[in-house]
């Protein structure tokens, strides 16, 4: 069997900052994963739809605009509704320290903020897939 870790990297909402998302997407590819990048300005519905069809193990969201407290939990809610509760959620971007506990409660396993190295993200994924 030739199983690959599949990850969807998505940007919900109107935020156009895409450098971080693309950087992470490339880093995960270089770590041997199959990465589906959906581009900017996605609705939570579109992201969840893609995650289900692509049968990903992880969904990683990126937001720098400040709308994470609304959009991240909305993706989590829809994912559960569509039967994707076993898909692991994580995220990153410009996210204040004090917002992180709330996002974790909403189902996000980890949040990476500016300056996070790609190897931290790769390690997180590889560890999660072991224990999942």
């Amino acid at each position, binding site marked *: 069997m030739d199983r690959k870790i599949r990850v969807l990297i998505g940007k919900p909402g109107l935020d156009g900052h895409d450098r971080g998302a693309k950087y992470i997407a490339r880093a995960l590819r270089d770590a*041997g994963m*199959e990465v589906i990048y959906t581009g900017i300005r996605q609705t939570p519905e579109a992201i969840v739809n893609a995650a289900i069809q692509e049968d990903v193990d992880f969904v990683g969201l990126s937001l720098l605009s400040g709308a994470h407290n609304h959009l991240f939990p909305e993706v989590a809610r829809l994912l559960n509704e569509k039967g994707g509760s076993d898909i692991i959620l994580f995220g990153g971007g410009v996210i204040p320290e004090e917002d992180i506990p709330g996002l974790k409660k909403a189902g996000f396993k980890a949040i990476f903020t500016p300056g996070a190295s790609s190897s931290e993200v790769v390690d997180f994924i590889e560890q999660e897939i072991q224990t999942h």
Partner: protein
Amino acid sequence: MLSSEVEDLAGKVRSKDQRGMARVLSMVENGHPLAPPILHSLYNPERSGLTIGITGYPGAGKSTLTNRLIAYYRKHGCKVGVIAVDPSSPFSGGALLGDRLRMQDHASDPGVFIRSMGNRGHLGGLSGTTRDALEVFAAASYDPVLVETMGVGQAEVEIASLADITLLVLVPGLGDEVQTMKAGIMEIGNIIVLNKADRPGIEQLEMFVNASLDLIPDQTLRPTVISCSALSGEGIEKLTDAIANCVSFGTGRRVIARRRTKLILRSIIREKGKELARKHVSDRYGSIEEAIESILEGKTTPYEIGEMLSGFLENKRENENECKRD
């Protein structure tokens, strides 16, 4: 227990459960041991779903064109499937699958199922399992299924044998490439799409393409040439008309079903034959490497091993016949 899992998953595909179908597609892609029995359960020799292949160099606009074709078929009430293949990195084995980016118009339409695949080292512009994935899409009544190849190497040849209709996408600025294109490639596409017609150089491209099509010995095989702009949508109707023409002319649905069955059986024979032969040689000599050593030491030759394999298959058949007689 196993067979109930197989029936459960096959049932999910038939009842158009997207999560179940996505799981089955992964099992097919990963070579999961349950994939063959699931495919067996789903296979319908008379299925009439159409496969449209889209090939051409990276950046030619295949994904943008696919986005337009999805819109057209959705407007006509069809459920549309898409398989988009991108290259896997030969170094890491990972892949960046970005074709969805250009198909965002349909991102939340439940009547469109888009699946991105890395080629995982398979040569020929597709993934090794695209053929089987198509049967899964068909069982969930997606018709047509659009297959976007990764557009390098022998992509044209492979998709043309798999798809019922193949679009070869060319763009202005490719004049030289068209002239030096390997003989035969131009004949492979049923339709040659000259995309980016909004760009300068489209007339010149048209000239080059027509000149090389004039050289096709059997002009009844001459593909239709359509110029359009996937970006603006200009000329897309001409293209969809040409596709409809292709289906009614020459490639009737029954012909398509027979061709598809032949293709699947042929490649299964090829794969299984390879697997069996390799295993038998390994069993006999310890490993393929050791067989090579034996040849180098003059104990046998590749031809003798070939004869041994033919004998093996013959004996197997005799044994089976004997079993039946008992």
